[in-house]
């Protein structure tokens, strides 16, 4: 299901609440790119981009884009104070050595154990493995930002991923336009239901059992 811009913004705004001042955060392609717009710059969050930037700033105003300054998704960006440039091997060195606090990734499917599929729909569309496996393996916390349903209106959160995996047991949290779900050892735990959806509309459109948190919030 294609999301409206308001829904994408809502997911990004909710995702930003998982970030604390001073963190180093990687933003993947798609909705994750929008997260930086929802944080106060004085928090000094350093956004990491695998094409070789630490300190990605907000999107530039139209007409002030720089042809040589984009994030890993190819979208023009600006720089935060303290930013640096480096090559892609150093960018992944930061990831592999455990210096990235949170990675926000897009996904095609996520399983109840936190398996991630985000690189190929066999016979239909090949995206490529990209940086997902390494970010998923080495970032301290991995949060998937995606639509709750696919283009056929089928659940993307499943008992088992049907699509080839990018990484196993790596996702800690899933944020969609319908819900916030934590991946726990006991299974998927539903913590928030987003307006205007009902609890039932989340449960029936999720393809894996959900533990309903005792602190479940219905978010306006």
């Amino acid at each position, binding site marked *: 299901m294609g999301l409206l811009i308001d829904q994408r913004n809502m997911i990004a705004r909710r995702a930003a609440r998982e970030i604390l001042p001073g963190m180093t955060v990687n933003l993947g392609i798609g909705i994750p790119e929008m997260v930086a717009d929802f944080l106060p710059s004085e928090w000094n969050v350093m956004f990491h981009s695998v094409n070789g930037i630490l300190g990605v700033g907000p999107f530039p105003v139209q007409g002030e884009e*720089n042809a040589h300054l984009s994030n890993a998704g*190819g979208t023009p960006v600006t720089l935060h104070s303290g930013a640096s440039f480096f*090559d*892609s091997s150093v960018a992944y060195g930061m990831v592999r050595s455990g210096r990235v606090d949170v990675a926000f990734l897009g996904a095609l499917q996520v399983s109840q154990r936190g398996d991630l599929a985000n690189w190929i729909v066999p016979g239909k*569309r090949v995206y*490529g493995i*990209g940086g997902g496996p390494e970010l998923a393996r080495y970032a301290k916390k991995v949060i998937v930002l995606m639509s709750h349903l696919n283009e056929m209106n089928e659940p993307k959160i499943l008992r088992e991923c049907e699509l080839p995996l990018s990484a196993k047991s790596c996702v800690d949290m899933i944020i969609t336009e319908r819900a916030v779900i934590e991946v726990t050892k006991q299974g998927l735990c539903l913590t928030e239901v987003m307006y205007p959806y009902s609890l039932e509309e989340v449960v029936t459109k999720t393809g894996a059992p959900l533990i309903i948190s005792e602190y479940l919030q219905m978010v306006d």
Partner: protein
Amino acid sequence: MVSKLISIEEAVDQVRDGIRLMVGGFGGIGTPVSLIDMILQKGIQDLTLIGNDAGFADQGVGKLISHERVKRLLTTHIGSNPDAGRQMMEGKLEVLFYPQGILAEKIRAGGVGLPAILVEPDVGIGPSQQEQLVRYAGKNYVIEPALTADVGIVYAKQADTYGNLIYEKAARNINPLVAMAGKITIAEVEEILPAGELNPEHIVTPGIFVNYIVRTSGGMGEWGF
């Protein structure tokens, strides 16, 4: 000192049918577009292409794929070029995917004379692609061979005539790695100065890695946004 500056046409004489060609750039940014245009114009084919991504349909490095000049592609992401996915599914293009950081590190290893790198299993390399497992310090690793190329082509903001290179912003990406991994490296550059004019503290790629420099005919960033 002999200048490494030559014409784009002369430089592309190094690129022959069937070679392993490594290309700098990431999502279109920092791609040596003038060299790619000349390779296309000269009718070079059957290339093994090594690069971060497949570019865009008929743009940048994507032109070589859209025009079916590539038989084998070692890369990490092709989602922005539907021609690559289509040729892959039709069996016209062999694609080997590597996780992005592993690909970058394989290229770096090739450039600095290391035979291979060790990577953790289960970080996105399919079992069929895993060449050899090794046990080191109590853990299992996959031996990932280093990557080199017959010719590497890169984009830089500034060069001196010795071939020292300085990049610009995110146009650096994998360019400094590719610059080291080619038996022959050609740099496409915006601004070329006499040797001695660049501050040695600012040089990212030392000229020892660069065989030829050519002046870009422009066109960077035309599709970035």
